[in-house]
């Protein structure tokens, strides 16, 4: 009788592994258990039946539970890896020797043998969400500096100047100074810079100007820091632009 990759020789009480060319001489107990499983192949053989070892038509002795389980595991282990699930021990019920290797395609939500309960799936999904949240909280996308006002100003000579005003607190002040600066720049005949950025301080007392010229072979830039008493009033004039060397 073929059991997986092994041949069970009923007469010589041998279990022969054909892949490894090894053989196992079964003792009375092991032979009894395997013979019963082979005889009732495909059926669950009750534990009580396997525990009562019969030799020559008479009950010779009784196996205890541990001995029986060990015998089952030994036989199961002797079968090659691809067939060691041919024998299944069902606790408190019995043992079954399947006719062929089981191909299990369990679907996780198949009742009543689904692999995980809904609660367990809930826990896993919760843990995954926590992981995503944890990762998300640690990955900060680069903060781009967003200007409150962006303008392009064309001077009388046709030069295009990029104007950016950063405020973040009072956008109306940013608009006021952007308007004022762009009006004055349109009157300038010679503007040295192609990009002008201005940041109004949170306490409304200072303005940081950043002037840059990138069209030349050598990058030029300059900072101008200005104290302003009243940020709600325009302070940029053509004269002032000349003074700080934005114009001329």
């Amino acid at each position: 009788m073929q059991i997986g990759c092994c041949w069970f020789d009923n007469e010589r009480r041998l279990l022969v592994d054909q892949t490894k060319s090894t053989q196992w001489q079964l003792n009375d107990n092991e032979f009894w258990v395997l013979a019963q499983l082979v005889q009732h192949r495909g059926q669950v053989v009750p534990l009580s039946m396997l525990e009562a070892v019969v030799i020559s038509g008479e009950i010779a002795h009784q196996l205890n539970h541990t001995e029986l389980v060990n015998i089952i595991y030994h036989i199961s282990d002797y079968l090659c890896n691809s067939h060691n699930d041919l024998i299944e021990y069902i606790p408190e019920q019995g043992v079954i020797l399947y006719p062929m290797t089981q191909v299990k395609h369990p679907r996780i939500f198949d009742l009543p043998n689904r692999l995980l309960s809904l609660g367990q799936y809930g826990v896993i999904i919760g843990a995954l969400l926590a992981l995503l949240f944890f990762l998300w909280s640690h990955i900060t996308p680069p903060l781009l500096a967003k200007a409150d006002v962006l303008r392009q100003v064309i001077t009388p000579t046709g030069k295009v100047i990029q104007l950016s005003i950063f405020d973040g607190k009072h956008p109306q002040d940013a608009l006021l100074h952007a308007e004022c600066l762009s009006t004055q720049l349109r009157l300038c005949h010679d503007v040295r810079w192609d990009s002008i950025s201005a940041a109004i301080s949170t306490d409304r007392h200072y303005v940081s100007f950043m002037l840059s010229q990138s069209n030349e072979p050598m990058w030029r830039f300059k900072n101008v820091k200005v104290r302003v008493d009243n940020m709600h009033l325009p302070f940029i004039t053509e004269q002032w632009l000349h003074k700080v060397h934005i114009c001329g």
Partner: protein
Amino acid sequence: MVKLSLRMRRWRRKTRRFVQSKRGKLTLIFSLLLLVFGGASALEKWVTPHHLWRFTCYADGYLSNADPLKQDAMPSDLMLLFEIEHQQASLHYQLATDAAIAEFAVLQGEVVNVDLGSLTYQLALQIKVRQWQGDSLLQPYLLNELSLTKDRLQLFDAFPLKVQILDIDNNHSRATVKFIPSNSLWSCQTMSADPHQ
């Protein structure tokens, strides 16, 4: 040897059965999650880039209280040297009028936290050295830039500060630095910039 082999088989069998059981699968999934959590934390903690920044920033300062429309004085030369070397940070402010250094302040401290996404450094600073003139222009400017609510800056005053490096040009020669929350901006030369250019 036979006993050892049997034990090994038994152990393998038990492991296989555990892995195939519900409890084993759950344990595997949680182990995997723990591994990812731990890995992400370790990456964030240990795989941080080399923090070495040196910015040199100059500005024309029109810092007097006078209305900028009316002022006719020459601007002051305001300089900021800002350095971050690993966990140490320092800011050196200097205000010069007519080519003579009138006022200065040196702030030193530690990098408390780094947000790599936004390249923001949270610093804990202390004023180590400072010199003001009678009608100081630098002191009110620093109170604004460092977002301090005090009337004056004293030696060894400690305070937190956030500085964000907004952008760096392709040649790594120029960077824009922003002080948070004062919204003060500086355009600076970086350490790699050629001073002769």
